[in-house]
């Protein structure tokens, strides 16, 4: 949080059918439906999240990610980073307060990998869902499905991730926590953090711009990941791979797809990072193990199935 960017605050995903998507994000993942706006967008969050929402679903004719937004410490931070982004060469767009319900103004910027990102500092805080702020219980009753705890990170695919990572590291104060390097020194995967998490956003080099690999939600235990796998089978949900462990970040994970093909992840555990830590490095020759620690083999889907 060297430059005042705290965490991933929201992600807006495009879906082909809103009611089908809600069966996935609300009923299966267990996110809480918080609101709907006049455009028909639906706002959700994991139950521990204090801000009003972290996931926004928008019905569209092609799935994928519209943008991911990062919450900053203050409006002053947003102002100064806005100036630095322009200085750095980004195109910046000011989105007025209220364009997302109960969210303050946002500064949106583009990137060489073709993704759109946002900075904001103000969003209504409704508190953790289902438990009080004083003498809080351990968890709320009445959660459904996988009981996702929070939106955690996303993995994005695009060209020139070095350029995008530069924006995050040089302008926004993120650290490179983990990376995959080819024999010639080319970095093909960059996992960036602005906290002590192993990643707050991650990038993999890919020729098509602006692609989403997955949006990820945190669970507490391996038992919860296995239970998520059971729910995936019980509900005949499209499974990608898992439960397994990643080499990168060492998280314990399962990948699956929403009803229109956006990949979801639920995971637990994994590495932590402090600003004085050198990046954890995986060699590209060990890419299979880096991605799927047990299989030690990459499946074609990990590299080609994107939205």
């Amino acid at each position: 949080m060297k430059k005042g960017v705290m965490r991933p605050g929201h992600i807006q995903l495009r879906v082909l059918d809103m009611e089908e998507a809600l069966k996935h994000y609300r009923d299966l993942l267990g996110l809480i439906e918080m609101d709907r706006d006049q455009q028909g967008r639906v706002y959700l969050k994991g139950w521990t999240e204090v801000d009003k929402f972290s996931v926004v679903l928008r019905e569209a004719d092609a799935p994928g990610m519209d943008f991911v937004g990062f919450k900053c410490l203050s409006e002053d931070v947003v102002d100064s980073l806005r100036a630095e982004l322009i200085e750095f060469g980004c195109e910046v767009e000011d989105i007025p307060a209220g364009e997302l319900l109960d969210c303050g103004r946002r500064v949106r910027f583009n990137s060489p990998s073709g993704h759109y990102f946002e900075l904001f500092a103000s969003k209504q805080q409704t508190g953790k869902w289902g438990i009080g702020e004083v003498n809080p219980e351990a968890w709320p009753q009445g959660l459904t499905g996988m009981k996702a705890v929070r939106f955690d990170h996303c993995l994005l695919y695009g060209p020139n991730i070095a350029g995008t990572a530069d924006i995050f590291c040089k302008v926004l104060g993120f650290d490179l926590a983990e990376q995959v390097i080819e024999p010639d020194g080319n970095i093909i995967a960059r996992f960036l953090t602005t906290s002590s998490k192993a990643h707050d956003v991650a990038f993999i080099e890919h020729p098509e711009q602006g692609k989403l690999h997955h949006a990820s939600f945190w669970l507490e235990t391996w038992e919860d990941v296995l239970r998520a796998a059971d729910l995936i089978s019980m509900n005949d949900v499209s499974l990608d791979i898992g439960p397994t462990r990643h080499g990168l970040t060492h998280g314990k994970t399962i990948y699956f797809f929403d009803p229109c093909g956006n990949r979801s992840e639920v995971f637990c555990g994994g590495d932590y990072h402090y600003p004085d830590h050198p990046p954890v490095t995986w060699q590209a020759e060990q890419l299979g193990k880096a991605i799927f620690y047990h299989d030690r083999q990459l499946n074609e889907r990990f590299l080609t199935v994107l939205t």
Partner: protein
Amino acid sequence: MREKLTPATGAGQYFQIMVVNRGEKYRCRPGQSLLASMELANSSCINIGCRGGGCGVCKVRILSGEYSCKRMSKTHIAEDQAEAGFALACRVMPLSDLTVESDHCSERPHRNTQFYSDSPATTVGNNPSNNKSQRKFK
């Protein structure tokens, strides 16, 4: 009294799917998608991706037969393509026997060229969802 056990799939109608470019055929029950029935038949003559009409990996061209289609990503099936019989197998519900051609997921770069190249900063394929808002990065 216990109910008499009947096979879960039941007897009755099914459609014959012919995948000409692979020289394979399999059966599809009414109400099943072209891709799901292929998976059930333990075949791999159509590539499997997200199974949700989003990734384009299962793209096929339908040469003959009747079918209906759930909504598909415009990134992979533009309107003129749908009219030409292109479709995403995971969203196709056969309504008769079908003759199809698989392996139409063309613009996808192969794994090796993808990871072990200089990864030029160019856009591959046309992605309408990007075009609308993609501005040049200075």
